[in-house]
């Protein structure tokens, strides 16, 4: 079972994703802002980060870059969760250090499978 850090500002979405992941037996470390997420990543030793791109204050790209600065995070996959990509979003997400992205809204029936795929890639 994995320790998954979720950085998501929307309370309902955070709850939904947490619910699905915990139902599958994973441990969720919730964070509601980028700063909070960076702090949690240093202490909680996650196996994976699910990162909302559209965050208040420090946005997801900045958060991903910051996370990748820490040697301990070098091998931890960061997956962006974004609603609807705009031109260049894909490149920006990859440039920032993510290994891929999941599109919102998530489909509860397939979500778990997609997450596991990213986990296995590492």
């Amino acid at each position, binding site marked *: 079972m994995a320790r998954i850090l979720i950085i998501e500002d929307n309370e309902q979405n955070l709850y939904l994703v947490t*619910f699905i992941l915990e139902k599958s037996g994973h441990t969720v470390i919730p964070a509601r802002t980028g700063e909070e997420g960076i702090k949690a990543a240093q202490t909680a030793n996650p196996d994976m980060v699910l990162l909302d791109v559209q965050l208040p204050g420090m946005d997801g790209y900045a958060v991903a870059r910051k996370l990748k600065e820490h040697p301990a995070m070098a091998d931890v996959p960061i997956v962006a969760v974004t609603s609807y990509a*705009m*031109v260049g979003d894909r490149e920006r997400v990859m440039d920032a250090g993510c290994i891929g992205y999941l599109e919102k809204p998530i489909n509860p029936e397939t979500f778990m499978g997609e997450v596991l795929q990213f986990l296995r890639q590492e």
Partner: protein
Amino acid sequence: MSEESRRTEAEDSSFLRSIIERVSDGFVALDRDWKYAYVNQKAAELLQRKRPEDLLGKHIWTEFPDGVGQPFYHAYHRAMETQQPVVIEEHYDPWDRWFENRIFPSEQGLTIYFTEITDRKRAELTILNNATLLDKENRLLSMLARGAPLEEVLVTVMQTVESQSSGTLCSVLVLEEDGVRIRAGAPSPSLPEDFTRAFDGAAIGPREGSCGTAMYTGKQVIVTDVQSDPLWENYRGIALSFGLRACWSNPILSREGKVLGSFAMYYREVRTPTAFEKRLIELAAQVAGIAIDRKKESETRKKAENLLLERERSLSSVYATVGDILFHVAVEGPGIYRWISVNPAFVIVTGIPEALVLGKTVDEVIPEPSLSMVKAKYQEAIDTGRIVQWEETSNYPAGRLIGEVSIAPVMSADGVCTHLVGAVHDITRHKQLEEDLRRLNAELEERVRIRTDELAEAADRAKHADRLKSAFLATMSHELRTPLNSILGFTGVLLQGLAGDLNAEQKKQLAMARDSARHLLDLINDVLDLSRIEAGQMEIVRAPFDMRLAVEAALSLAGPLAAKKGLALNASFSAGVGIVVSDRRRVEQILINLVNNAIKFTVRGHVDVECSLSDGNLVATVRDTGIGIQEDKLPLLFKPFQQIESGLGRRHEGTGLGLSICKQLVQLLGGHMEVKSKFGEGSAFSFCLPCGSTHG
């Protein structure tokens, strides 16, 4: 006036002046106040002055007081008063020299051509003095001197000879211009006209009587007896019938030795001339030659004078009527230029009265800074001997004048520039127009610049608006989908039973809520897709993929809906259809849209997807057996928010954006879309895509 014609005029004028300078005649112009307005080099010499300038502006009778009361003094006055030309020859006693004057009056004064004839006069006198026996010499002399008519002179010569040798009858024959035919030169005093006229039209030759032979040989011919002399064979009869027996003839020669005619002495008896008579006939021929020569010379000179006068007149009229300023200045010394004349245009254009210019030096009239330039240009014309041109702006009483000035040097025969002839072409208005045009251009440029700035600003604003639009789309995408995310997520989780078991009714209602949420998501996605396409924000990622797999994926997504309606879904691929390079996600989106659409409007039958290759393009067709589309509705099909009425009284489920999005996506991928339909039988939507293929 064009620059060329102006130059030609200046050259004409210069040409004319140079003729005047070169003629061997003296040429002076006197104004109405008897002052010299023009003196050519020859005239200065004849009048015993070093340079023409020594006489210019001087009063003739102050310069030549001895002339007062002389015949030419009266002739000048007569010409001035009657305005009729006068020609006079006279002996100018103070210098003991003969002059011939040809005086032409005009309103401006007198134009006089004169030449010294002292040598000719003395030659004439010598001839006549040698023939001291001619007692009518004085009469003859004065006739020659006053230029009496030729015929009168010739008759007098014959009379004189007849009076010196008793029994002689004289005749003068002249040679026609052709140098062959002869005719009577003047009525003979003693011979009958019938006889002298008998030779008119006869040709000269070696045996054509005394005269014809003399003219032919150019030598004196003495025939003592017509009856026996072979030279008279052709004319013996007529001579004898008039009782003539002897005929001595001497050719009349011009100064250059050309035969002009013959002078003959006839006798009624056989006779041999004495030495005196031989000399007499020679002298008579000489005098006749002088008279004929003079007649011819005067005719030639008259023609030249007429030509000159005509040119002068036409130039004068040009001078008076031309719109350009024309002027004439005398070069009196280094840097000293005095105005001799200006034309009416000068007065009109500058507003300076003639009286303030004529006789003044340029220093007195032209203000600085123009003066220095003008004098430098004049000097240049004098030094180079060429026409000099420049542009000048001056302020005159009549206003500002911008002129193109041309100045032509007038050279004397010995190469000294004595005068300058100038022309000024008024280009003030032209310059004004140029200036206006320049200003207009500048204004136009300014307006273009402002407009360009405005456009750049508009472009900036448009770019800014685009950025705002993108930002808006991103925000809307996030804001609209975030709540849907949790609605779909939680209904999904609940329906999966992850949060506990649900009864049948709860499941049914929750499923309805989820379907509505999915429909809302479709709507949002379509609107955002369309907006992104229109904002140029739709991302196209080309990569090779297998078209067959894309079709299968689309069909598997549409499978449940088709199954629910009992419709068969089929896919077929022509040989060669396989890997294409395009955006798989968008191609699938198009296929799903078209297939869902087909299912939506088909009640029974099947929906088929056919893929083939055509001209290197992939053509995909989605064919259904549905309700079809009325032909007049086809053009509306691809417009956003158009859903064509099914005729069943209800709108079909869907956003009305699907086909519009499909069409625009196909275009983004470099292809195009078309539709064929038969109302009631079904539709076929096709799109073609460049395969971009494996080598692309």
